[in-house]
């Protein structure tokens, strides 16, 4: 998984046009999905974790998206899964970015030092490179096999796995910022290193990671689903798109397409909608 890089707005970029109303429609799909996540579970026609009908009933009047091979209502499960998948993705994004900020700043501020601190920072940097080189799904498989598949485990596991993306971005920004003249001025003025780091370096280094949250969010949805698909996701019958996909795929081969197609479509829509919304928000932020 490679990290995206961002271009820092050049000095003298035009001021934001706060009257620009075009493009807001791009946020609407994600807002709708977020609304579904918040209110959807209260409006479900069936309990998403209980057997409510015969197995593999095709989509129709009673069951809009049909039922899966266990007789669970696919529509109710797709809607109920929205909250869990978005919640996991949101928490993973926040946590991965916090880890990224902390570790990225630590590495960036110390890696050129001499002595044990510099050595530790450079070692940590190589460790992050190593972690980034291993596919997230493989790391996830191993970690979750050890600690079990619960929502907190998945959140912590994915946050740690995806944090190298943010760490590398923030480290790069710190390297740039720490060479700025105003830091030297602050040092000369007697500002301590800790205060310097958190008061001046951090605010000027995390914007890249902030812009990158859209990637982390989307990737965490995909990896959560992929872990479910390979059988180490949330335990059944927890509604989760990846696990639904996994359990529905054999049915799809046999022509019973609905139990995998609807969660797959929800997954694609959520990722697409978030990407669209994030690109619009970031575009406005940069203007």
């Amino acid at each position, binding site marked *: 998984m490679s990290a995206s890089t961002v271009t820092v707005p050049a000095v003298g970029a035009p001021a934001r046009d706060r009257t620009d109303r075009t493009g807001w429609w791009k946020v609407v799909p994600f807002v709708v999905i977020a609304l579904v996540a918040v209110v959807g579970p209260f409006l479900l026609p069936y309990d998403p974790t209980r057997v409510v009908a015969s197995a593999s009933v095709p989509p129709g009047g009673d069951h809009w998206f049909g039922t899966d091979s266990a007789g669970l209502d696919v529509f109710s499960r797709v809607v109920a899964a929205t909250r869990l998948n978005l919640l996991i993705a949101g928490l993973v994004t926040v946590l991965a970015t916090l880890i990224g900020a902390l570790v990225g700043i630590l590495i960036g501020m110390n890696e050129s030092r001499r002595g044990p601190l510099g050595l530790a920072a450079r070692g940590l940097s190589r460790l992050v490179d190593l972690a980034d080189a291993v596919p997230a799904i493989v790391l996830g498989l191993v970690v979750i096999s050890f600690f079990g598949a619960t929502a907190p485990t998945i959140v912590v596991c994915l946050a740690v796995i995806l944090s190298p993306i943010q760490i590398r971005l923030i480290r790069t920004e710190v390297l740039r910022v720490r060479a700025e003249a105003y830091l030297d001025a602050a040092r000369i003025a007697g500002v301590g290193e800790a205060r310097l780091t958190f008061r001046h370096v951090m605010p000027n280094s995390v914007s890249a990671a902030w812009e990158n949250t*859209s*990637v982390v969010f*989307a990737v965490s949805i995909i990896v959560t689903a992929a872990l479910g698909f390979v059988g180490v996701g949330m335990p059944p019958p927890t509604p989760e798109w990846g696990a639904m996909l996994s359990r529905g795929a054999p049915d799809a*081969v046999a022509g019973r397409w609905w139990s995998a197609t609807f969660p797959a479509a929800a997954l694609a829509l959520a*990722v*697409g909608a978030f990407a669209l919304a994030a690109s619009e928000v970031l575009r406005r932020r940069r203007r």
Partner: protein
Amino acid sequence: MPLPSRPDRRPPSGPAAYRSGTVVLLGVLPLLLVACAGSDGSGGSAGSPSSTGDVLVEAVAAVPGGLAFDSKPGGYEAFEYTLLTGATLIRNPYVQAEDDPNALTQDLYDFEGVLAESYDVSEDGLTYTFHLREGVLSQAGNPFDADDVLYSYERKWNSTSIAPAISLPAITDPATQLRKIDDHTVSWTVAEAGHGFPLLAVISKISGEIYDKELLEEHATAADPYAVEWSNTNGNFGFGPYVMTDYQDGQQISFEANPEYPLGEPAIKRIIQRVVPDAANRAQLLRAGDVDVAVQLRAADVAAMTGTEGLQTFSVDTNNFAWAFMQTRTPPFDDPLVRQAVFYAIPYEQIIEQVYGGRANPVVGLLNPEAPHHVADGLLEQEYDPQRSLGLLEQAGVPTPVPYTITVSNAVPDMEAIAVQIQSFAGDAGFDVDIEVLPPAAFQEQALTKTFQMRLYRDMSVSYESPPYSLLLAFPEDNEERNSTSWEDPRFYEAVAAGVAAGDALSPEAAVHWNRAELVWQEGRAQIQMAKVQPLMVFREGLKGFAHRTDNVIDFSIVEPGS
């Protein structure tokens, strides 16, 4: 003429545009995943021809974990390999199945010779003398004789084989029980006449395979004195109907018919086992006519293929059980009343209809109801009765809902589906169920360490017809390692001993004691039998000779190409 220039569209630029495109692509991946689910996945050519006349292509889930039964390679593929290349002294003859005109089944209460021509029983019922066939050659060309029989049991009892454990209680020490009379005669002696039928039952199954002593001794080493490891990787060390001719790890295995097989060269001259890991893809290949036989299919797929033109499914009563085992040392299942309540909290009909598409049968008791003189008095029929469950929990004095965790292996999807059904219906019966899905190794580890509460799995009792064997299989006396539930009851073992002491294990006198043992087992309820799953293999139309066996694999030596 110059092409008109394209309108000046500002290309997306910057990281946001890059990210947006990337994540949209990532989002579309799941849809592609669903689309790809229909692909072959076999690694072979989907359009390649399957059988032509006497060549048969079988879609299997994997190659065997090993080729020697004594090296404990479990699973369908290992059992089928043993049956293809191995032979026993005797076997159960095949007869027409009562419930399916297109299927055969084993007559579990009769025996016919394979490597033995015949056998006699002494008047006291303690000694069984086997007259071996002469002129039989092994796959390596060595002649078969009594030494092969003695050597085979010596190896089984001096290796890591599971044969000693599953040959109890009839065979405890082959060194003293098995004797060579002459080059073509051997005898088995049992401690009590009641062990006679269990002896025949167990030596007629795949654990009674006879090996080519001469070949194995050639490959024995100080570290591997019985050439178990050599045979585990090389195969072809017996007298079976087929010879393995090609082994491509993870891809396919080929077999040729053995013209020296004592019951005659099989009609199918060549078998190709093609590895297709995914059950749905195996079913799809069969539907497409790319293979002749697909095994280990999902019950839902077999149900969907029933009645499909060009395919044959089989509806035979089997011993392929869906079992629930409860750990009785720790709460909540340390209380027999709670275990009895669970019996009424399982939606049996729902499981049979929804998980198995109607292709499973209910189970009553622990023993084969078709056994001669079988007594079923007092045995409870399966019934989902939430009120009864709640009553038992109240009697037990435990607060409801009673929480417990069901553990299943992610390698057996129907168990996961059963767990979902149980969870869904157990709420009304006073239980709060969690489901834990583990990889096979972790699942097995839980059984060994007894750290589960309830575990579901599908397995068979290969010598199902033999009462003491079936009763003791999961609850061996004084064998903590093999008794995963830790349930023991002196009354149970007393009844089993009385059944053995009654003489013929199939006699009416013995049957009374077997019934007593079953009633104690029922009261203890450490195990619940949820369903007997009908055959999970499908043949293409035209192939003849499917037989259900208690090892639940296909005996290709009796299959014929048909039209």
